[in-house]
């Protein structure tokens, strides 16, 4: 039964990937935010399990707590409030259809697993698969940013991308807390800036569709 802890770690990391896929599948903003909350909760569980596995790593527990508090509660609630205030919670806003996006996501998952398995041969098996899952989550986050046209869902995509980074950081032993706190704060600040920015866009253009921004650009060749 010595592999059970590792299996649980893989289960949690795999759960994060699954959540990413669910996020890609959601095409309504309120549902997307719910999945994002679940994403953050799974991340917190995964980081906490890593902390448990790695023993005396107080700062990993702290990281899990930060993830749970900010990404599992504060940010989704704030985003939900924005969506409600903007009145866009029913909007369907994908650029590419769901099926091609899902297929692309599966391709990306396969790519990152093949890549990581080949590159990290001989490394710690715990970290190895964690890294593969983390890369998948990062790529799926990017994919989401590329295939959505609404600014809110781009913010969500960016946040899920960052979750993947935290997963990778938690898997690597000896990651100093400073880095994690710095990353968490930068995300928070990015969130605030984007939140403010969203309202500005809304005030000026009556929409948060990014295509509306392009119409007023003056430097088109």
């Amino acid at each position, binding site marked *: 039964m010595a592999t059970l802890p590792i299996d649980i770690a893989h289960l949690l990391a795999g759960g994060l990937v699954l959540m990413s896929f669910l996020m890609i599948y959601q095409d309504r903003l309120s549902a997307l935010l719910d999945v994002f909350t679940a994403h953050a909760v799974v991340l917190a569980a995964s980081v906490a399990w890593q902390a448990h596995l790695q023993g005396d790593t107080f700062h990993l527990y702290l990281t899990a707590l930060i993830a749970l508090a900010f990404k599992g509660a504060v940010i989704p609630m704030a985003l939900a409030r924005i969506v409600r205030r903007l009145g866009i919670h029913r909007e369907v806003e994908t650029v590419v259809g769901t099926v091609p996006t899902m297929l692309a996501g599966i391709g990306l998952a396969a*790519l990152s697993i*093949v890549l990581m398995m*080949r590159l990290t041969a001989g490394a710690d098996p715990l970290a190895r698969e964690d890294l593969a899952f983390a890369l998948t989550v990062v*790529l799926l986050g*990017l994919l989401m*940013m*590329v295939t959505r046209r609404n600014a809110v869902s781009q913010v969500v995509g960016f946040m899920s991308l960052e979750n993947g980074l935290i997963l990778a950081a938690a898997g690597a032993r000896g990651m100093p807390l400073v880095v994690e706190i710095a990353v968490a704060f930068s995300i928070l600040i990015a969130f605030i800036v984007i939140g403010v920015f969203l309202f500005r866009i809304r005030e000026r253009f009556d929409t948060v569709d990014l*295509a509306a*921004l392009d119409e007023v650009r003056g430097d088109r*060749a």
Partner: protein
Amino acid sequence: MPPVDAAALIAGALLALGPAALAFGGPARGAIHAAATLLCLLAAGTGGAALLTGTTTTLTLPIGLPWLGARLALDPLAAVFVLLLGLGGAAASLSSIGYYRHDPAPLRSLPFQPPFLGAMLAVLLAADAFSFLMAWEVMSLLSWALVMVDHRDAATRQAGFVYLVMAAFGTLALLLAFGLMAGPAGGYGFDAIRALPPAPLTVAAILGLMLLGAGSKAGLVPLHVWLPLAHPAAPSPVSALMSGVMTKVAVYAFLRVAFDLMPPAPWWAGSAVIVLGAGSAVLGILLAVVEADMKRALACSTIENIGVIFAATGLALAFRSGGMPALAALALSAALFHALNHMAMKSLLFLGAGAVLHATGTRMLDRMGGLIHRMPATAALMLLGVTAIAALPPLNGFASEWLVFQAVLASPALPQSALQMLVPAAGGLLALAAALAAAAFVRLYGVAFLGRPRTPEAAAAPEADRATLAAMGALALLCLGAGLLPGLVLDLIAPAARQLTGAALPAQAHQPWLTLIPVSAARGTYNGLLVGLFVALSAGLAAGVIHRTASRRLRRAPAWDCGFPQSLPDSQYGAGSFAQPIRRVLGRTLLNARETVHMPPPGDPSAARLTVTAADPAWAALYAPLGRGVNATAAYANRFQALSIRRYLSLVFGSLVLLLLGLALWG
């Protein structure tokens, strides 16, 4: 103090003179050029001392890359060029003392000129790739600032732009070359590069990149186009520095890599250098023959001399890869000797051209004339300079070109039959270039200094200032001394030849009458001293006989009235008319020279017009297509300027996935 420490201190002091020029005002500022002159003389002394002892000294400064430091070294090769830089820099700085007095905006050049010298010295001293490239780039940028002194002139701005582009391109090539040399392990110290010689094909690639990088700075065809624009645009002492010294720093970079850092290259690499050098010589001097601008003609002649130096260097490469160190040493000594000589004579000519420019206010030959009466000292010194650069014995230009031809004549010893055929052909091109050089400088001197003044300014030209005359005099002494006693110079640079080729010319100093015997007495000898004595005696005798037998009275009479039906100065031979035969014979094909005569129709009283056009073929063949290509690419890439945020993200995402795919497939 070890020589390298002294040289490093001098380089630092020269670099510090730039800020000092801004910090001090008044007389202290005026003394900057004097301080630079002294420092350059010290540098020349340091280089000479290092050459006489023939030792290598090194120094590591705790600046630059943290794990490497700034490595400096003064070995015989560097010492030759430190000597060259010291002498050329001292002459130019001395002349700058005079130039400074009538410079309308001295602060445009004063803060840059001494640091430019210091940066060139740092290039020569650098013994790791990082310091070398850093110093090289500082040298390029400072010289660009000096070219742009007269920035209100649109032509100068154009020259500065072309120069900046070429300098950036050259540094890029050098960067790639040093990257290849350092290899995957990243050994950037010169000793690490020497310890790990790359494969022969890599050596050829490195030499190709060095030809691009150093050749673009030296003015090798077809990378020469910036040179006739940028060198004349700068103030004349700076033109002297750029033509006389900076091109030699580029030659040094090529020699350092090709002979010191790299193992012997494949023989065809040497042949490429020979062909490029010989081609540069002919095209450069042909451009000089048809050029109407005095300083531009001098700059074009620099291309020719760089071609001669590179042709000799290519011969040395070929001999070295053929395993003939003695002949390689002969060719390399010829290259080094010619580099030294060209520094002296080109600096002398540029300083003289600067004096003429200041006196007449023009660079166009057709607006000068008769200056020998108004500027006798300048005219005498310039006469010596043009005699030297036209390779007439007993001056130094003849001695070094004679050595080059000795190396050419030794080519049957080469093992490759392709080289045996190619080198004599290149030798023929070099001989053509030497003959054209004589024509070009007879024309330059004759039109500017002889005849009658063509403009009122030329008729009232004042003599050059004393500092410039002193600098020119010192350079003229160098030309004369190196011409009369070439053996002593060759003995001085022998340690450098031995360092690079493993052999050296036999010692010349103990030969009877200081005869120059490069290989053996049966192969050819030259005695500058005896030739000089003979020239002096026979010329003196002829002059004496003429003055004794002929009437001493100065007579002025109409020459042939059919030649001068009207006594207008314009009826003299001009720059264009002097160049016409050569332009018609060679320029039609090589320079695309065309003459169009516009005759007004009968009854129209307006003047007939003869228009002569000639263009550098490199522009049409190479640079115009290149410019069109760059513009087309830019127009295409411009589409990416105006994408939506999502498209930019998609681009980033796509390239990331592509990279990961590549890694997965071939990683």
